[in-house]
């Protein structure tokens, strides 16, 4: 560590230390979230509100994007499989694999990092700016538990949203294949059933749980510890989206290597 620091300029050393401090602060925040819980009747209503806001409120965009992504994957696969020796069922097979392994869990999570993540950062950040978090603290409420814990629990339902994204994505692919004339329905469905490995779905759901935790907590961190006014709330939302996306992409690589590699 000291050797690395010696090669950096003073400014870079400060930035490097700031990143380390932020990582440490994030994990301390996670620890604080689970301490001194809020009364259950209040927490229950907060969780239900967050499920409505974060999961149910995102279903429209998830379904819309999944349908068209599934369609595009099918068209691109079909256009690249132009050899007459390759069966048309491969289009269904490639669509299934792409949607289940990558597009539904990862692509949807990046979209959620933008939609849900920026909502979380801006709502908590606004509470910070308007002293509402200070008001909770003065009353003796564990503000991190009150604000972040319901979001983590609500995001546990995110794999259900991803399951719907998988179904709709494949349906979008089937629709594109039929109406675009790329493959007959029977061939496409045959491809969907070809060499199916149930662990691929498990792998996708494991990834999704990790992504859900990141989407709930990283934007919360950026909102909770922000300083300044309305302009800084906007900046914090953008920073939260960038870092949530980066962490999701890196985690995606690591989990894929661990589970499938």
């Amino acid at each position, binding site marked *: 560590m000291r050797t690395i620091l010696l090669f950096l300029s003073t400014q870079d050393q400060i930035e490097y230390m700031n990143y380390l401090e932020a990582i440490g602060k994030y994990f301390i925040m996670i620890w604080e979230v689970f301490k001194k819980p809020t009364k259950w009747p209040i927490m229950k209503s907060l969780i239900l509100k967050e499920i409505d806001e974060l999961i149910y409120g995102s279903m429209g965009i998830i379904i819309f994007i999944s349908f068209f992504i599934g369609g595009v994957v099918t068209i691109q696969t079909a256009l690249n499989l132009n050899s007459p020796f390759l069966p048309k069922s491969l289009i269904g097979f490639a669509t299934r694999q792409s949607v289940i392994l990558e597009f539904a869990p990862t692509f949807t999570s990046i979209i959620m990092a933008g939609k849900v993540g920026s909502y979380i950062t801006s709502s908590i950040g606004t509470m910070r700016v308007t002293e509402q978090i200070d*008001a909770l603290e*003065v*009353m003796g409420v564990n503000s991190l538990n009150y604000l972040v814990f319901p979001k983590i629990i609500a995001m546990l339902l995110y794999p259900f949203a991803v399951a719907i994204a998988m179904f709709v994505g494949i349906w979008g692919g089937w629709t594109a294949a039929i109406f675009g004339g790329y493959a007959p329905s029977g061939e496409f469905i045959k491809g969907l059933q070809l060499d199916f490995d149930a662990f691929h779905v498990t792998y996708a759901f494991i990834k999704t749980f990790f992504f859900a935790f990141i989407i709930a907590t990283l934007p919360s961190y950026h909102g909770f510890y922000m300083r300044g006014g309305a302009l800084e709330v906007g900046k914090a939302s953008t920073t939260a989206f960038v870092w949530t996306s980066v962490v999701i992409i890196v985690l995606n690589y690591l989990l894929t290597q661990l589970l499938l590699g």
Partner: protein
Amino acid sequence: MITVENLHKSFGNNHVLKGISTTFDQGKTNLIIGQSGSGKTVFLKCLLGLFEPEEGQICYNGQYYSELSLKERRDLRQEMGMVFQGSALFDSMTVEGNVMFPLDMFTKQSRSEMQDRVNFVLKRVNLIDAHKKYPSEISGGMKKRVAIARAIVMNPKYLFCDEPNSGLDPKTAILIDNLILEITEEYNITTVINTHDMNSVMEIGEKIIFLKDGHKEWEGTNKEIFKTDNKAVTDFVYSSELFKKVRQMYLEERN
């Protein structure tokens, strides 16, 4: 009563509070005044327990804050009410929800008991028709009243107010000042108000502490502040033309 002994607080190299010692009396409105950057807000946040001082002690009715366990500190927090500068009402809750929040969080009262208490305090701050309105639907003065109602709903022993008049017209500001004064006397609360509004000093300053660069520069009542010869205090108090004339008249009368 709150006793402060030699309070020091720094942020990095910035030494904000430099050994403040004073007492805040029960049943009185105690005002902390001073220019922006003099350490008023940091001092108030230390009193609230939001900032931990590096040195010195704060004693609440004989209990030293630093000697309290986490649970005792939480219990003490529930004896404090705070009115924030921007009211800090929860946007997602109605007026009624905001006032009911501490009761819902920390008491085992039934819904009807909580409702009765909320109705009582809202009536006490002269808010009768705003129960179901959201903070975005009410005026600045009404927001302050809701904030006061929320601060007193748990029958606090200590009431802290950070610039309760900021952003209000002079008439509403006087109404809010008088409301705080009435509540302080009625419930025998130790009230600490952070302000730089000279009208508040004249209206409700039963005890005034003047801070300058993190030091306690002067301490006295609203009657004494206009007679003091302390230059820092007179520069602050007579910064407006109106008060300069009042000062001139007083000096002429004295000579």
